[in-house]
């Protein structure tokens, strides 16, 4: 029941400007942390490199969605107008990719968009309706005008005292707090 101070979820460090958090992120990356993150009200240009993140793989989901959409469109039209119930209309061919193209094109885009959206949700593990960070009052500013670094206690290099000192003294965080689980 009682939140044990010995079992923190993470350390939360607050920064006031984009430049401060940018430099702090570089320090955290170089310090070798793995379970840590930067929280900002908007994406900061260059932060992916500063954190050492790999390129986002969302594009693969888009590609798969698009391929599915295009082949589904072509197959559907072939099946309906040529295979299942062939019906000559206006003396035109029963199937050609030409007249099937507009609909298949739209389906490519439709399923690419769904692939992109759900791919992004999947990679980000969203929706996530519980997060210990939400219990922290200070963290509410992460969607307003403050910048945060969160280093999780589960990180192998995490040690309450040393990491706190690192965030305050080396990274110059304006405030460091424990986030309880």
């Amino acid at each position: 029941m009682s939140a044990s101070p010995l079992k923190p979820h993470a350390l939360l460090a607050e920064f006031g400007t984009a430049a401060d958090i940018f430099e702090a992120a570089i320090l955290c990356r170089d310090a070798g942390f793995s379970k840590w993150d930067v929280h900002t009200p908007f994406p900061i240009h260059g932060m992916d490199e500063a954190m050492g993140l790999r390129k986002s793989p969302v594009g693969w989901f888009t590609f798969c969605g698009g391929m599915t959409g295009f082949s589904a469109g072509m197959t559907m039209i072939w099946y309906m107008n040529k295979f299942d119930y062939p019906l000559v209309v206006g003396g035109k061919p029963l199937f050609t990719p030409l007249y099937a193209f507009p609909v298949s094109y739209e389906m490519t885009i439709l399923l690419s968009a769904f692939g992109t959206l759900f791919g992004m949700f999947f990679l980000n593990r969203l929706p996530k309706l519980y997060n210990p960070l939400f219990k922290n009052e200070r963290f509410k500013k992460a969607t307003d005008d403050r910048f945060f670094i969160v280093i999780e206690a589960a990180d192998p290099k995490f040690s309450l005292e040393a990491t706190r000192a690192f965030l305050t003294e080396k990274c110059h965080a304006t405030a460091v707090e424990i986030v309880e689980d």
Partner: protein
Amino acid sequence: MASASASAAAHKASHGSHGAPALKVADAPRELEREPLVLNERPLGWITNAIAGVCENPMPKWWWPAFVVSFGGMIMMFSLIAYLVSTGVGVWGLNQPADWAWDITNFVFWIGIGHAGTLISAVLFLLRQKWRTSVNRAAEAMTIFAVACAGIFPVFHTGRVWFALLPGYLFPAPNANEIWPQFRSPLLWDVFAVSTYGTVSLLFWYVGLIPDLATLRDRAKGFLRKFFYGLFSLGWTGSNRHWSNYEKAYLLLAGLSTPLVLSVHSIVSFDFAVSVVPGWHTTIFPPYFVAGAIFSGFGMVLTLLIPLRSLFNLHDVITVRHVELMCKVLLATGSIVGYAYGMEFFIAWYGGSPYELYAFKNRAFGPYWWSYWSMITCNVISPHFFWFKKLRSNMVFVWIVSIFVNIGMWFERFVIIVTSLHRDYLPSSWGYFTPSWVDVMTFVGSFGLFMTLFLLFIRFLPTIAISEVKGVTPQADPHHPLGGAKGHH
């Protein structure tokens, strides 16, 4: 000092006795300062407060009367549609030879309006036009609401909608005789284009909203607001690991929406161009329709945003520069539209088809001459005022012209559809279309639906993309002094 003495040396050399002309090194051009996108160096917190405040504070006094009127219009429209469904499409003035008239005019009008939203959100994003951030949210909302209005007309002009929708000729489900929809028809392409467009616009809009919904969640006071903003923001924390995938997804959606928006109005134009009706059967239609759609859509964006920025005091975010840039888009697309009108006439003459030529003469000088010349006045003449900066930055004037653009683009579709249909090959089957009161009031009612949705949007959602606007301020740049960077630049 060094450069001064160097240029003195160069000066000396060029006038020296050696005779060899020395290179004159020009000074580096002074970097032109761009007008900031958010005026008065507003801090990030100010942006949150100003925008989130709009949907958190009680709505101003005008909101309720505006909502009641719009809601009334919407109810009227749905009642008239119930009347149509229970009676038949004859309650609209449709009859041979004009089986398409106000219904399809309204459809193309509304779908065209949507296009500006996608253009702003997707095309300008790909072109790295940062000014879009102040207007894209409202423009995308406008797109979705306009597509909703557009969808109503083609669905209900089928009369017995239950045949159209369920065992459809529209959606691929076999009808009573187990016959599938006919995919050679552009009308069916249109069904796929419009429904894809509506869906993708909604997804794109929602993705853009997630970080802002999280902002509203973190500021929410009441239980309901906390619950719903919390639910729809999906647990967004502004994590950079998330932003990384999010930005990629946003870029991809923009990349997908761009060919989509171009295809949608091209396919809408195929509804006409693929037929053999004089006045419709032309290859210029796809680009001409797309330009017209963007033209009409920017007209509607200005009609909505100019009042919005003054009613909610958002002058520092939607600045005069934003309005001016949109006027320039009106000027460009309006000129394309004007060119297309001229080219259509030229080809009608040059093509040598007497029917085609007659269709165009009939447009300008036949019984519907008044609609043709209304279109020309509104679409060809009015955008050319925007060559002048003084007029572009006069908000009242811009707003009035934007209304003219809306009217003109409605007339354009009316001209294309009705003047072509009412007199085609056989003079014995010529006719004259007059709208019924149901036609007129259903169209008026569709504005009620549109405004109801837009007013609810202002009431509950951030009208400007908060996180995106923050992202284009100098404070967001870690290498800018305002972003806290130390040292020289």
